[in-house]
């Protein structure tokens, strides 16, 4: 019987290695896999590359992971936001490598990794600083730059409901990066607010089919804060 549910957060994070590239879902406070991030801090993996839309806020979650010195590099679209104090400190001190990617290119690079597309052309960034040193090509009279896919070793995902096969649905704006990151990692770990019985999620409404999911841990975390 396929049962991807694991008993606790420690089991969910087992085997994440030093040097891993870790995707972290969420946008703003919605859909953040906070329990998995906390568990990753406990777990101890170092020298991580984080892929996320933001670079953390306050001194909790992603920011705490960074403050603990466990992040070597961050790949994101919006590092500076209200309360990104830890990022600011580390970046100024030269202790954090940064790769800024336009949000749509970030999303498409992640989707491409999940879809077996190693590279694609996009108009986003052409003629700008973020397009420098990238291959330029014209299609139908317009200029585009080549972007490569962005795969990860691990994806940390927050779902609203998941079943033992790993099928997931999300809640409102909590779908965001979670659904695409789930497809792009060698090890996809889901923290879910609710566990559904197999067959309870409408087959027409499954957002992440279980094929993309490796582990499911039940964390009735409650509503996003802030």
């Amino acid at each position, binding site marked *: 019987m396929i049962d991807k549910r694991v008993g606790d957060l420690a089991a969910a994070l087992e085997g994440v290695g030093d040097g891993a590239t870790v995707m972290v879902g969420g946008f703003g406070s919605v859909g953040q896999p906070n329990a998995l991030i906390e568990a990753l801090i406990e777990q101890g993996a170092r020298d991580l590359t984080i892929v996320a839309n933001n670079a953390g806020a306050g001194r909790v979650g992603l920011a705490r992971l960074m403050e603990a010195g466990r992040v070597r590099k961050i790949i994101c679209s919006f590092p500076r936001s209200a309360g990104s104090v830890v990022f600011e400190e580390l970046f100024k001190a030269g202790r954090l490598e940064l790769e800024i990617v336009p949000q749509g290119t970030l999303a498409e690079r992640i989707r491409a990794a999940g879809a077996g597309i190693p590279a694609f052309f996009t108009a*986003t960034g052409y003629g700008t600083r973020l397009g420098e040193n990238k291959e330029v090509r014209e299609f139908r009279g317009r200029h585009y730059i080549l972007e490569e896919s962005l795969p990860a070793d691990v994806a940390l995902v927050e779902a609203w409901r998941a079943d033992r096969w790993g099928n997931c649905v999300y809640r*409102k704006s909590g779908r965001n990066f979670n659904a695409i990151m789930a497809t792009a990692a060698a090890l996809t770990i889901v923290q879910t607010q609710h566990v559904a019985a197999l067959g309870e999620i409408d087959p027409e409404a499954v957002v992440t089919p279980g094929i993309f999911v490796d582990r499911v841990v039940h964390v009735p975390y409650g509503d996003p804060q802030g």
Partner: protein
Amino acid sequence: MMTDHQILNRAQMAARVAQDIPGGWYCNLGIGIPTLIADHIPASREVVLHSENGILGMGPAPEPDQIDPWLINAGKQHVTLHPGGSFFHHADSFAMIRGGHIDLCVLGAFEVAENGDLANWATSAADAAPAVGGAMDLAVGAKRIWVVTEHVTKDGKSKLVERCSYPLTALGAVSRIYTNLAVVDVTPQGFVVREMVPGLTFEALQDRTAARLHLPENRNG
């Protein structure tokens, strides 16, 4: 030089943009003044708002006791959803943007050049960690880009320029600019003034603009 003319405040600028958005358009409204535009679209006019974090059919901010913590816009503010709205993930959301399905995106700007170049994400070439977000995708992807911004910075510098000095967001992207003083089209001939606030002369507007302004041809001819 003082002139006796009106200066639009932020709400008035937003209202002015809202006037020009026809029913049926799919629009993405950026952070800042653009976000305010939604409040000035009459409820009778169906304009479908897109938010890049995966929402189509976004409604206004909820009453404080009606907040749904799972529903925020790209500016991280709580919003609502109209009947007919839908949720999707980030790749699908930016497929809508990049694929040319958004009729209009309204953005703020640091500078707009007379060739339509837009600079709105980084204030200095030396800033190694500016936050780009979805600005570049929106600027190349939407069918039309309008900018809404104060005509000059707090230091009195014109935001309408011959060539951008700040790092670019996109080349030749902007087709219209709404400022607190005027509505300006970006045309192959450069900036064409379509409208000015009451009491403002063309010459006074030109004085505050670091690129040449033109009057529409029918007013020249």
